């Protein structure tokens, strides 16, 4: 543990250089904007800004992208509280009590407690990352292809189970993503596959095009379908002196903040949209244990403090599976994995040993970023809130212009823009059909890794599928996966049996 802290100190030395400090600040600032702007979530925001990092070294690029990620998580609360419009999905729950507080003239305390909770949750979660990541990476070194294949299948099934919609629909999206991931070169033999003679497709489907298309453009198309008068909402901008919470607010929030930290941290370690699950989990817990559950939904400060803290703690701990085993457990870490690969960094068990300067500098930058965000969020909230006065009908075309520019700059290719447009249309259709885009993205990013692990496992076992159940870690993961798959069926069976059991009694 002592070694970890020594390495963390050297990470601080790297992260505190003027250059990296500037990237951390700009990432956090841009992330806050991304979080505040409705219609541009962290996935599309990060995907859009990856090209901007091309000129940077891998450490600086990741410091900036990580800053955008947790900055977006901080910023998302602002629109939820002031406008009842979540800047990103994880802020949906903050709308419930945050907006009610704003309507009661208590927007300031809601915003400041969200910032304080986010800071505490984020900081404690980074401390957990420092403690857990190195030993977990050493354990993950024992993973072979069967364990990795089972882990990825586990991640897909759990993510599909927790997205909130139909499990079958989410699994279909995973498979569609996996199919798209097979386009290009076969990762084992190097043969061309599904390229139809196109040199463009040889380089595989550009995941940035899929991310911006499905998440960014798809969302904007949904807005375009609405009548223009439905786009605008009203915003109340609090004054600086109204921002600070009272002693009573702090006292009521502290328990929620600490519980939110625990819930968020552990949620980040499991596959799924961690920040979203963490916020719902935290809100449910706070409401259950509260002495005044009737105040929830009417402006209870715990309903803002808990979820906002959990959201940020989950954001930080979601870096652990990405860095340690190289497998993102959610859509935003999947985007970050893509960005890391572009910069020539392969996350996994060897990352901490082989690139300690990168790993520890990024972790240190998270501490710095969290502090920057606390400083930014409290005094500059009125400034950020004023951004919301820009009408959506002007903002959305501007975001499209940035999408087109960002997409072109990835490979200096118009074909990428066409690809983005195609996936934008798909994103719009998927929303209409009530399909989630996140499993598709995860399938696309992890597809080649899963194929390699799957085929290597069969080669090792000479074609025996038993290899997946003979090894204890792989077996355990598959057992949990099957349990997750069967759970909805058990639930369905239980529901269909229950009325039959009660019928005779009632008659």
């Amino acid at each position, binding site marked *: 543990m002592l070694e970890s802290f020594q390495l963390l100190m050297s990470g601080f030395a790297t992260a505190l250089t003027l250059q990296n400090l500037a990237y951390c600040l700009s990432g956090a600032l841009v992330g806050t904007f991304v979080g505040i702007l409705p219609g541009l979530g962290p996935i599309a925001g990060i995907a859009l800004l990856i090209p901007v990092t091309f000129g940077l070294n891998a450490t600086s690029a990741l410091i900036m992208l990580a800053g955008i990620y947790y900055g977006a998580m901080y910023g998302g609360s602002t629109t939820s509280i002031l406008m009842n419009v979540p800047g990103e999905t994880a802020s949906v729950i903050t709308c419930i009590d945050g907006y009610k507080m704003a309507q009661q003239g208590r927007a300031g305390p809601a915003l400041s407690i969200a910032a304080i909770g986010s800071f505490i949750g984020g900081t404690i979660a980074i401390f957990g990352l420092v403690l857990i990541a190195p030993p977990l990476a050493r354990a993950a070194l024992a993973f072979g292809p069967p364990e990795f294949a089972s882990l990825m299948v586990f991640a897909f099934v759990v993510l599909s189970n927790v997205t909130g919609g*139909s499990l079958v629909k989410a699994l279909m999206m995973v498979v569609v993503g996996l199919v798209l991931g*097979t386009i290009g070169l076969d990762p084992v033999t190097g*043969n061309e596959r599904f390229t139809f003679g196109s040199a463009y497709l040889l380089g595989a489907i550009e995941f940035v095009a899929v991310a911006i298309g499905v998440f960014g453009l798809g969302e904007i198309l949904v807005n375009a*379908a609405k009548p223009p008068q439905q786009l605008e909402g009203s915003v109340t901008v609090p004054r600086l002196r109204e921002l600070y919470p009272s002693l009573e607010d702090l006292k009521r929030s502290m328990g929620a903040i600490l519980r939110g930290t625990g819930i968020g941290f552990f949620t980040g370690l499991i596959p799924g949209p961690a920040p979203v699950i963490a916020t719902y989990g935290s809100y449910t817990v706070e409401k259950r244990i509260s002495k005044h559950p009737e105040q929830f939904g009417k402006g209870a400060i715990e309903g803002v403090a808990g979820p906002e803290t959990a959201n940020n703690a989950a954001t930080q701990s979601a870096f652990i599976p990405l860095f340690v085993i190289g497998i993102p457990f959610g859509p935003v870490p999947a985007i970050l994995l893509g960005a890391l690969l572009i910069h020539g960094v392969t996350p996994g068990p060897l990352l901490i040993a082989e690139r300690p300067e990168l790993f520890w500098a990024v972790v240190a930058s998270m501490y710095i970023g969290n502090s920057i965000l606390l400083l930014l969020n409290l005094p500059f909230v009125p400034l950020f809130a004023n951004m919301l006065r820009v009408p959506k009908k002007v903002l959305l075309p501007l975001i499209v212009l940035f999408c087109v520019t960002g997409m072109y700059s990835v490979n200096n290719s118009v074909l990428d823009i066409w690809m983005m447009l195609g996936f934008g249309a798909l994103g719009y259709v998927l929303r209409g059909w009530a399909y989630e885009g996140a499993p598709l993205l995860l399938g696309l990013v992890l597809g080649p890794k899963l194929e390699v692990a799957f085929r290597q496992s*069969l080669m090792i076992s000479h*074609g025996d599928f038993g290899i997946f159940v003979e090894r204890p870690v792989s077996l355990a993961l598959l057992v949990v996966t099957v349990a997750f798959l069967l759970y909805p069926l058990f639930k369905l069976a239980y529901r269909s049996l229950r009325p039959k059991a009660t019928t005779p009694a009632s008659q």
Partner: protein
Amino acid sequence: MTSAIAWFVFGAITAALSLQYPLGTLRAPGSGFFPLVLGVLLMGLAAAHSIRVRLEQPKPAVAPEAAPRRLDEATRRVLLFMGVVTLSTALLQTIGYVASGFLLMLGLLRVFGVGWGASALIAAVSAVASHSLFVRWLAIPMPPGPFGF
């Protein structure tokens, strides 16, 4: 149900196309093996989804009178939106970044219901500003077009 059919067809096409590549053996799977598995899996999932939809038997939707008109308006706006982005993308390399950016902004602002005068002004300012930001400051080589910008 439409989505289930679409994904079933997509799975079937994937499976059929994957047969063009060597399947190999279980000891040494070839390039077509994994996509074939995925195609079949997708067909199975789509079939399961369609069965579930049929079993649930949703009530026939009774659309209110205004609904079809609203749907048409929404579709028209989405098609206009896509048309504007498609046109400006198609012209990007011919007329250059600033002109196609202007066209994109002007068209989209109009789709979102902004008046002609304001649209033209905002489009001009944003096209020039984005050129300054991306091309001059961030040195992203966007297509210059015949005017050099």
